[in-house]
């Protein structure tokens, strides 16, 4: 009964949204900021991906807000849902991987071992080319977090990642993001204003500090989500 009630609710909501969107004029936006940013982003920021120049240069403070929201969410989940949040030892990493009692099957373990390096390459590519192609720190960071946590999910007994190291990476990435912003504040006068030379438009070393900021965002998001998933999975094994 609840299922049908929720279905009815959703269809009613969709009907109201359709009625509301029927009144909106399609195609002519009242916002003028978008056009202005599209015209001036190439000269002011120098990033080939305009979305990146909006996210990190024009609205850099919003990105810092998103990072703090994500940090608060991950902290609360880690605090509420886990009892012993620290993974005990890392010495078992040196052992030759072999299938133990709680592990997943042969196919899952070998598939994860096979695609783990590919996932790392994809994640790092998306992070480092965030100012040139679609994607960036958030997307690449999530892919890195999934890559590391999948390994520990198929082998619950084997501790593949040190939780202290993950916390250290996360803290360092967050501090460096704010640090770059503060350097920009004291030298240029605006928080998170892009620094350094723009370089050649469209090359990997271009757009000033934007790639560094995206690297910090990617490491922070990846370490945060990987720590969260590892903590959830570890507690499930211990309990």
């Amino acid at each position, binding site marked *: 009964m609840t299922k049908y009630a929720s279905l009815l609710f959703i269809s009613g909501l969709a009907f109201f949204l359709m009625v509301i969107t029927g009144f909106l004029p399609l195609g002519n936006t009242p916002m003028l900021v978008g056009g202005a940013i599209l015209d001036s982003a190439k000269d002011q920021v120098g990033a080939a991906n305009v979305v990146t120049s909006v996210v990190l240069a024009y609205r850099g403070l919003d990105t810092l807000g998103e990072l703090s929201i994500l940090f608060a969410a991950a902290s609360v989940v880690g605090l509420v849902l886990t009892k012993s949040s620290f993974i005990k030892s890392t010495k078992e990493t040196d052992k030759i991987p072999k299938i133990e009692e709680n592990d997943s099957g042969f196919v899952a373990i070998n598939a994860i071992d096979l695609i783990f390096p590919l996932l790392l390459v994809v994640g790092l590519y998306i992070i480092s080319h965030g100012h040139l192609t679609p994607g960036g720190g958030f997307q690449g960071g999530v892919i890195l977090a*999934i890559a590391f946590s999948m390994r520990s*999910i198929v082998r619950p007994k084997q501790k593949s990642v040190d939780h202290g190291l993950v916390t250290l990476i996360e803290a360092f990435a967050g501090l460096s993001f704010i640090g770059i912003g503060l350097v920009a504040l004291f030298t240029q006068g605006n928080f998170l204003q892009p620094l350094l030379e723009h370089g050649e438009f469209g090359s990997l070393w271009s757009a000033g500090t934007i790639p560094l900021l995206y690297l910090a965002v990617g490491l922070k998001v990846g370490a945060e989500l990987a720590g969260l*998933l590892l903590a959830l999975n570890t507690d499930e094994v211990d309990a």
Partner: protein
Amino acid sequence: MIWIVALVVFIMLAAAIAVLMLDNMIAAVVAASVVSLVLTVIFALLKAPDVAMTEAAIGAGLSSLILAIGLKRLGFWEIKDQKADNNQGDRND
């Protein structure tokens, strides 16, 4: 173009209704993941590749993983065949 969008929206709606109707929890999580995956195609068709990548990584990947871990922690992680399911249902009734 319009027919591709119509097909994609149809698949998305079917998967979303399947989330509500399915009895097996794991199948429901997979169906929710399918909704996100098809939404990725819609974003790519609308020429928003950044949003499409975010949706693919977070909606289809991470949230399904978190839901699956949640199922495991809550003890709903069980794969049963249809016959055993029916028998247990009869016994409970």
